């Protein structure tokens, strides 16, 4: 090892001490670098494309970017720890109401959204409701996905079953499907997919969890009773008890493995089967969301990009958002890589070419379907996100289908929701 002279030692240590004291790196080390945390997309090709675009961004702008991924169920806890420690990634991908939950910690990105809206048209309603917090855009709408029906078209044809149009129709065909050994797969457990189905069933009957004022709990209603009764007969006659233990991936696994005959989910199950060349892929297709007496409603899951206030690279982070979403050719490329699982969130891009890349994407159009985020018609808030994250709605249904009297289960949910709103 080369001996270090006293002069060199003193110069190096004095320099390091200076950097540490000032907290500013020397010009040579001041290359801009940002870090972005996103979920593990259920359309994995989209994550690969994101990495590729990230490399091009670095080449074009000189800003280094590190893209990390995390399972969607871990996002809330991870973000909470980043906020609490005021350290972590510069910008993060946020699902649904997250901008409301972390509002005081997020940079105002209204300027970015204004530019995007000029280019692509207004943000669709669910994106606006969830990222536009108290008059300020706290995150930039990135893309959205929505729930619809995924079913085994081959089995339906073989048994001569009609494609259901209402939730009541589903009960009728569901009984036949169960007899055929291919039950309906709607989770009733502590996961997000359970809420994504329970909400639309309740909305299509005219019910709601919380009123428009965001303060009055409305879960204890005749519509909820009707919804719970529907779930009870579905559980008894069309499904198997396994749905009480399912996680967000279980319904996908069930239909791709050849068991379930009908599930309520975005198109990720089909994409998985198609991309992995599974034998069930050809038989799987989609149809539009089911209706009830009060119309056709479904769950919308908008996703956004938010920049933490504690970030030291706010401008560079904004540049990344402009690059990914603001350049039409890049945004198109990114959307296409998601195979119609990730859809554009701006009105003028709704009829996107990605929808024509596979005939089985024909139903992936929310025509005649009212799409909402969790908790609708209550305005999005941190409270709604809390009720969501505590799985009050699926637990209410799970109680009822496993023996708790309907009214008792609903009263339990009402009490939990009131406690959440008061807290």
């Amino acid at each position, binding site marked *: 090892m080369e001996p270090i002279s006293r002069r060199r030692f003193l110069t190096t240590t004095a320099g390091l001490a200076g950097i540490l004291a000032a907290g500013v790196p020397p010009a040579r080390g001041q290359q801009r670098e940002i870090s972005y945390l996103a979920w593990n997309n259920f359309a994995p090709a989209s994550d690969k494309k994101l990495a590729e675009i990230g490399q091009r961004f670095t080449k074009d702008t000189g800003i280094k970017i590190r893209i990390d991924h995390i399972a969607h169920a871990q996002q809330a806890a991870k973000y909470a720890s980043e906020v609490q420690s005021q350290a972590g990634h510069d910008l993060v991908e946020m699902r649904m109401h997250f901008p409301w939950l972390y509002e005081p910690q997020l940079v105002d990105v209204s300027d970015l959204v204004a530019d995007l809206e000029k280019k692509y048209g207004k943000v669709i309603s669910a994106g606006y409701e969830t990222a536009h917090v108290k008059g300020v855009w706290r995150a930039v709408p990135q893309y959205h996905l929505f729930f619809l029906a995924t079913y085994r078209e081959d089995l339906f044809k073989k048994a001569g079953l009609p494609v259901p149009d209402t939730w009541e129709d589903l009960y009728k065909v569901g009984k036949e499907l169960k007899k055929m050994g291919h039950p309906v797969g709607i989770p009733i457990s502590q996961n997000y997919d359970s809420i994504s189905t329970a909400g639309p069933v309740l909305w299509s009957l005219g019910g709601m969890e919380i009123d428009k004022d965001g303060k009055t709990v409305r879960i204890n209603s005749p519509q909820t009773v009707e919804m719970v009764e529907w779930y009870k007969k579905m559980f008894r006659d069309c499904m198997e008890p396994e749905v009480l233990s399912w996680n967000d991936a279980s319904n996908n696994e069930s239909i791709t493995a050849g068991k379930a005959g009908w599930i309520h989910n975005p198109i990720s199950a089909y994409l998985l089967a198609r991309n992995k060349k599974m034998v069930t892929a050809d038989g799987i297709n989609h149809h539009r969301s089911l209706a009830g007496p009060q119309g056709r409603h479904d769950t919308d899951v908008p996703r956004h990009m938010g920049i933490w206030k504690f970030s030291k690279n706010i401008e560079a982070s904004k540049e990344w958002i402009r690059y990914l979403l603001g350049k039409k050719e890049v945004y198109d490329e990114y959307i296409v890589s998601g195979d119609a699982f990730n859809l554009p969130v701006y009105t003028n891009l709704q009829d996107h070419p990605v929808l024509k890349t596979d005939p089985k994407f024909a139903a992936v159009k929310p025509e005649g379907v009212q799409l909402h985020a969790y908790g609708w018609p209550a305005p999005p808030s941190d409270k709604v996100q*809390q009720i969501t*994250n505590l799985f009050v709605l699926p637990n209410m249904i799970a109680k009822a289908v496993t023996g708790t009297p309907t009214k008792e289960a609903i009263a339990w949910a009402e009490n939990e929701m009131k406690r959440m709103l008061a807290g």
Partner: protein
Amino acid sequence: MAVGNVGVATVARRSLRVRVRELIDREKILGPVFVTPALLLLVLLVAYPFAMALYFSVSNAFIGRPSHFIGVQNFVNLWQSDAFRQTFQNAFVFTGSAVAIKLVLGISLALLLNQQLWFKRAIRGAVLLPWVIPTALSTLGWWWMFSSLYSVVNWTGIAVGIMDPPGPNWLGQKYYAMTAVVAVNVWRGLPFFAITILAGLVSIPRELYEAAEADGAGPVGRFWYVTLPMLKPVLAIVVLFSTIFTFSDFNIVYVLTHGGPINSTHLFATLARQIGLETGRIAEGAAISLYLFPLLVFVVYAQLKFVRKEVY
């Protein structure tokens, strides 16, 4: 002159070395020097987070927002939550049954391992495996085995004719789900019991058994009047540690059931995470995780007192 200078320098260097050695020899100095790094780590990694948790539990802290002191309001409010009351009950059922089963099976396994066996060392090493594998990873394996779609447990049960198809809904029915999380906890914690009790067993003097045998004691009598009394201090320590670890278990429930179905397997740690981190109510989360702290302190105090009484 030059020789004289070298001689002075050597003496000075020697005296410095001697002084350092003398300093090191003093216990009053050396003790704190050795203890300080560990103390600093304890303060940074244990005391500071604990103090923060204490503060959060008596505040209205919400992730990323300013907070203020509200006294014991969080602890009082928690009793109104059905999920918390259920969790409270779950924690006692889970810990009580898991520790009891681990104790009985642990003693049995230790007695077995204490026999003259072929491949004794290999078997003792293999017994430790469940304890060595990262819990989250091994629990994922269990999740696969209990999964409704691919359950190898049900497949085997049906194949040998002890279960009717489709078999128990392990993770979707509350009693089965609790059974599943207890079973995995027992599977993981058993080696700790067995190996520690085995260490206690090998330290029991052979003469005591010989004397008991001479007095006509059979295997049960020898176990009851020699083994068990001699093992008491070891058992007390093992049960103490296991009670604390089991009460604060997180991984098994988080991976297997996520606290479901209908909160029937939530433990303090999993509910605290769900409320404190996933919904942002960090104050309530801290209160949940600290709820049993006074009780556990009392259990530790009582058991350590018992151990001291037994040993001295």
